């Protein structure tokens, strides 16, 4: 009767793609899927190792058939570095988004539903976190923790928890006044049942939209972190890091060193943003801090 998790998932996706905002959702999903496939299949797609100069490769070679995105100042193949770099950015961003969700959503649910002093305290803490510019705070946290993909994910998590918290809380406040929630209370349903089985599913569309839009933002922030060397250490393949080293050769005409990493960052961010916007049209989620 389940019909397989995969086919059910496909059914949901088909429903999302057909409704309003479907074109945006579909484009966004296609872009994200493409990058995900590239990241997963990196060893088979990348023609060369990302951090070794292939035999016969020149330094700063412009794009050619042998090196579609050119080579960098050390002779590494830029295309291979982009392919492997997709792993880093996706790992960091997805991990940080899941962690932000895992922290922000439950806090938002509890805060919104139970209210009281706890709600006021949490709101105050989240608002003070929110007051910092994202990139500044991420840099501060990441510099304290030291460069690694996990630490970068933690830094980004701190930045985006308030977004998930605020949007979830706002949705809970709306739902709390829905008659069916009052009816559940009247019928003696325990608070956790109302929260987990009724409010959370009804808030899920909002959370998904925030996931898309906050992840798009997180990609840009992640690029900033990696530009400053807070995600990976050279010669590990990493888009932001390549951007940092590539910029030195821009005046020498080596545009491919900044163009391809920069375009990849933008395209992936666009994919998540389109997904978020498409979903928000579909579910008619009113614009919050990312609307």
């Amino acid at each position: 009767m389940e019909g397989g998790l995969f086919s059910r998932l496909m059914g949901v996706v088909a429903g999302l793609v057909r409704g309003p905002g479907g074109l945006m959702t579909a484009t966004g999903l296609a872009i994200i899927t493409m990058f995900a496939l590239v990241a997963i299949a990196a060893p088979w797609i990348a023609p060369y190792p990302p951090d070794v100069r292939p035999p016969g490769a020149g330094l700063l070679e412009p794009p050619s058939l042998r090196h579609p995105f050119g080579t960098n100042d050390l002779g590494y193949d830029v295309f291979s570095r982009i392919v492997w770099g997709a792993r880093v950015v996706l790992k960091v961003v997805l991990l940080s988004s899941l962690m932000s969700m895992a922290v922000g959503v439950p806090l938002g649910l509890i805060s919104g539903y139970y209210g009281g002093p706890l709600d006021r305290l949490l709101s105050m803490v989240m608002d003070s976190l929110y007051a910092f510019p994202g990139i500044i705070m991420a840099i501060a946290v990441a510099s304290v923790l030291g460069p690694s993909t996990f630490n970068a994910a933690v830094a980004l998590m701190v930045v985006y928890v308030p977004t998930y918290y605020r949007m979830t809380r706002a949705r809970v406040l709306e739902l709390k006044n829905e008659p069916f929630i009052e009816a559940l209370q009247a019928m003696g349903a325990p608070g956790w049942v109302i929260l987990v089985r009724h409010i959370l599913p009804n808030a899920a569309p909002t959370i998904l939209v925030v996931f898309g839009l906050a992840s798009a933002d997180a990609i840009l922030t992640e690029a900033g972190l990696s530009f400053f060397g807070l995600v990976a250490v050279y010669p590990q393949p990493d888009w932001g890091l390549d951007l940092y080293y590539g910029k030195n050769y821009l005046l020498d005409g080596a545009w491919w060193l900044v163009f391809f990493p920069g375009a990849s960052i933008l395209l992936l961010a666009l994919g998540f943003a389109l997904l978020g916007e498409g979903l928000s049209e579909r579910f008619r989620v009113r614009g919050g801090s990312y609307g």
Partner: protein
Amino acid sequence: MAETIISVRGLKVYYYTLSGVVRAVDGVDLDIARGEWVTIVGESGSGKSTLALSMMGLVLPPGRIVGGSVLFDGVDLTKLSGEELRRLRGKRIGVIFQDPSAYLDPLRTVGSQIAEAVLEHGVASSESDAWRIAEEALEIVGVPASRARAYPHQLSGGQRQRVAIAAAIALNPDVLIADEPTTALDVVVQARIIELLKGLQRRRGLTIVMVTHDIALAGEVSDRIAVMYSGRVVEWGSAERVIGSPLHPYTRLLIDSVPDLWSRRKVRSIPGEPPDPRRPPSGCRFHPRCPLAVEECRSRQPPRVSAADGWAECFFAGEAGGGR
């Protein structure tokens, strides 16, 4: 008379709003017997819903019970903790509301919503038992068990109200509170829902407390009627007597305001507006609109004048026929 299941004594429920204290229920006494159908009738804002819901200890903020007691089967609900009340609600006192479409979770099948409540309250021990009870409850209210897998939006308004009733009776409560259960439904569906409730009352010995503004409906289905005006029950008695020979002028005017298909009697509306519940009139609260009002009505709360099967709060209730 059968045993008393709900006993309300001197109950006062006030809402503390920014624009003042709303005295929604202001000193009400009622005794409801097991297995009877009591209807609370009144205009909008008379406090009838507040009174009915407080009978299950359900007072939503900014409302508060500020005085009196509600004894349910001997237990004072006003003294129970939130957790104790929660266990009682649903299990022993069920409730259905006016707009059934708004009172069901749009994302869950109706069967799973009923089964969930059954499981939570420990009526069933396993998911499959709970599901079976949910299907049985649906059958009882006349919804085919196959509809258990339907979502609320796939059902009609009447069916949704039946589902709400099924959810309430699946737990086999002693009392069902029905807050304007048919107001949102068309007349034909309304009749069927009322018939269903009547059947449940007769066959299961269910006590029903219904809230409505429709005094004609109240007269048809209830055993006893409480007429509410501005936070007070102004008349209480058997449905037959309250409709047949009302003691309170307000009850009389309510009855006259109902259109009658068969008589040529003119429909009369009650002059004036319901009082502002934040500043109820002095003395008898009905005096500004009452055709019989005299000086005394302005200054003194009228006594409770007993009749054979109830009472009315009016200086003239003692004189036969009251407001005729």
